């Protein structure tokens, strides 16, 4: 930072989206990692195919069903995008936290709290539709942010483990929502007609639901999708180009160096954690106002966990999280077509977990391999400073 570097040539916009190493010429490490990744994905797919075969199904039929349900026609694409939006939002939040080196795994709970707060606002606030919707979404983000803020406060004042506190808070969040939808004074539906009131909230009125463009057989794109995509672009640029993004990366890669450079870990890391919760909460608001329309204990439907997996596959890069979220969304929408093939739709969960492994393992293996090569080289040839064979560490910020 001391000596001004010559101004770099302007890079095309695409590289902002892909990330810092976007259009840099890939070195031998990148090729090795890519090669191992391809191999691992093939192994994962092979394992999934094996699983289908031993359960008496046909892998070809399964792939066909997944394809039909997700991307074969515009209706499928619409469903895929509807699923991808909350996944992407959660993943964006996870990217921020991972970059800052605070690993938040409580998105499922933050999403639930976000949906609950959003529901509360949407049902209680009077006013013109678009204002109420906006306020509800912002409130949902605040709810999720506050929930992860508890973990942040605990970490930076008492030093409690973030992973454990976010994890435990997830289960508390589930009970908070259960309590809310079981208390008539809070959010339980006002039992219209006969029968006891069920543990869910009233439906959000028609005029407060998120608009979507396009009619059913054609491609429909909801507001949630647009919000998620815009957030992705903004976040990718901020992380790659802004002072905030630089500091965040610095904090995550080397907290000690960051501290010596004058970065306040509690403020920056804490706000990263809060922000990641806010994104999860926003995802909850989008699910509530975009698809489910009423608060139910099962409204989160694993979107929080899966969104975190998306971020892991994308290696905490917003630009990569976009296609990965679409892929996971496609798997989700395709899974409803699996019933016809006789293969349980839990297959999709297995495939997702295997995919994550297939993307998490290669950078580490590649780094190990590079170290082997380096160690085998004669001592005289060892460069004085870390060579290109070493920097694999930054590939895995989590």
């Amino acid at each position, binding site marked *: 930072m001391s000596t001004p570097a010559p101004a770099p040539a302007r890079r095309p916009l695409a590289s902002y989206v892909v990330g810092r190493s976007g259009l840099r010429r890939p070195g031998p490490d990148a090729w090795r990692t890519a090669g191992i990744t391809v191999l691992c994905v093939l192994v994962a797919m092979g394992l999934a195919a094996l699983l289908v075969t031993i359960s008496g199904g046909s892998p070809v039929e399964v792939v066909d069903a997944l394809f039909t349900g997700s991307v074969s026609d515009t209706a499928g694409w619409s469903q895929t995008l509807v699923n991808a939006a909350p996944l992407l939002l959660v993943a964006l939040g996870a990217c921020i936290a991972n970059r800052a080196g605070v690993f938040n795994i409580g998105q499922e709970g933050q999403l639930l709290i976000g949906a609950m707060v959003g529901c509360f606002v949407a049902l209680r606030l009077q006013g013109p539709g678009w204002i109420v919707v906006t306020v509800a979404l912002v409130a949902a983000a605040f709810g999720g942010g506050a929930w992860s803020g508890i973990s942040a406060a605990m970490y930076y004042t008492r030093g409690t483990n973030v992973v454990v506190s976010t994890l435990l*808070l997830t289960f*508390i969040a589930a009970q908070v929502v259960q309590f809310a939808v079981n208390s008539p004074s809070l959010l339980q539906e006002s039992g219209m007609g006969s029968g006891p009131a069920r543990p869910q909230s009233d439906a959000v009125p028609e005029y407060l639901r998120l608009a979507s463009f396009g009619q059913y057989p054609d491609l429909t794109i909801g507001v949630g999708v647009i919000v998620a995509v815009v957030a992705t672009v903004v976040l990718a640029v901020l992380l790659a180009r802004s002072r905030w993004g630089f500091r965040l990366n610095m904090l995550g890669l080397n907290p000690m160096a960051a501290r010596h450079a004058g970065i306040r870990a509690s403020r920056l890391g804490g706000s990263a954690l809060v922000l990641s919760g806010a994104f999860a909460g926003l995802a909850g608001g989008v699910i509530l106002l975009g698809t489910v329309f009423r608060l139910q204990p099962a409204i989160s439907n694993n979107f929080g966990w899966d969104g975190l997996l998306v971020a892991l596959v994308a290696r905490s890069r917003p630009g990569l999280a976009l296609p990965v979220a679409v892929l996971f969304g496609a798997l989700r929408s395709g899974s409803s077509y699996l019933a016809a093939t006789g293969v349980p739709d839990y297959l999709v969960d*297995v495939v997702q977990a295997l995919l994550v492994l297939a993307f998490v393992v290669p950078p*580490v293996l590649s780094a*190990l391999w590079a170290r082997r090569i380096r160690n085998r080289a004669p001592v005289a040839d060892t460069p004085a400073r870390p060579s290109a064979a070493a920097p694999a560490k930054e590939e895995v910020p989590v």
Partner: protein
Amino acid sequence: MWLDDGGTVLASALRLTAPLAFAACGEYLAERAGTLNISVEGMMLSGAFGAVAVGSATGSPTVGLFAGAVVGLLVALVHANLSHRIQINTFVVGLVINTLVLGLTSFLLQTMEFSRTQVGMLRIPGLAEIPLLGVLFEQRWPFYLLLLVVPLTWFLVNRTRWGLELRAVGENPQAADVSGIKVNVRRRQALMWCGLMSGLGGAFLSVGLVGSFNSNMTAGRGFIVIAAVIFGAWRLKGTLLGCFLFGAADALRLALPSLGVELNPQLLVAAPYLLALAVMVLMAKSQREPRALSKPFERGLV
């Protein structure tokens, strides 16, 4: 009347405590070695599934019980090698393993048929007649394995050279390393014990208590085990007390409606997590937590 109700609730509390206690023995040992193992949930679930699968295939629930422990061990092998050999973040590994096990067991459950398989009751004559406390002596027989496992875990950690090295690895891996202890080997071994015990706990839940397997059977019990270890401030006695408290809270939740007592069920479900969080905040500065907990070890400058 009061004694009868108390006995029923106590019996149910003990039944719900046992799976937690088995897994807690493993998690306690793993955490003392420095691994905050969140895949204990996946280990329990896979153990529960393996026990029913093998038990129903061989027709012997006892074989199933031990097979469940072995399945837990296999999951631990995967976790240990990913996180303490090639050094992937242990929480990432745990998260993926939990997802994978949940998906895989639910998938296999729908594609296979299992018969009912359950281990027998062991009633100790005489002692079982004691009012209230008699329920202690009328349990499924693997319950009494706790009498073996708990002292053994305590002995391993606190009275063997291996346990001393384990604790050293959990407190200060750099120092342990320079004194010749293989840090990551010890951590892998600790995870093996954790897998074995968690598998046994899960197996006890399925072939011991229920007799069959259903999807997501453990339902977060693994995370309650983590809460219990934190609640016990990384000591075995406190951990087991935590297990009993959380088991009792679960039993109360089930029993209260029939006893006619009004208590918020959501609060009872959330109680273990709330207590664990409170203990984490209160104990944060007490130095009870293994100092290198959840910090990966790699040789080199700190």
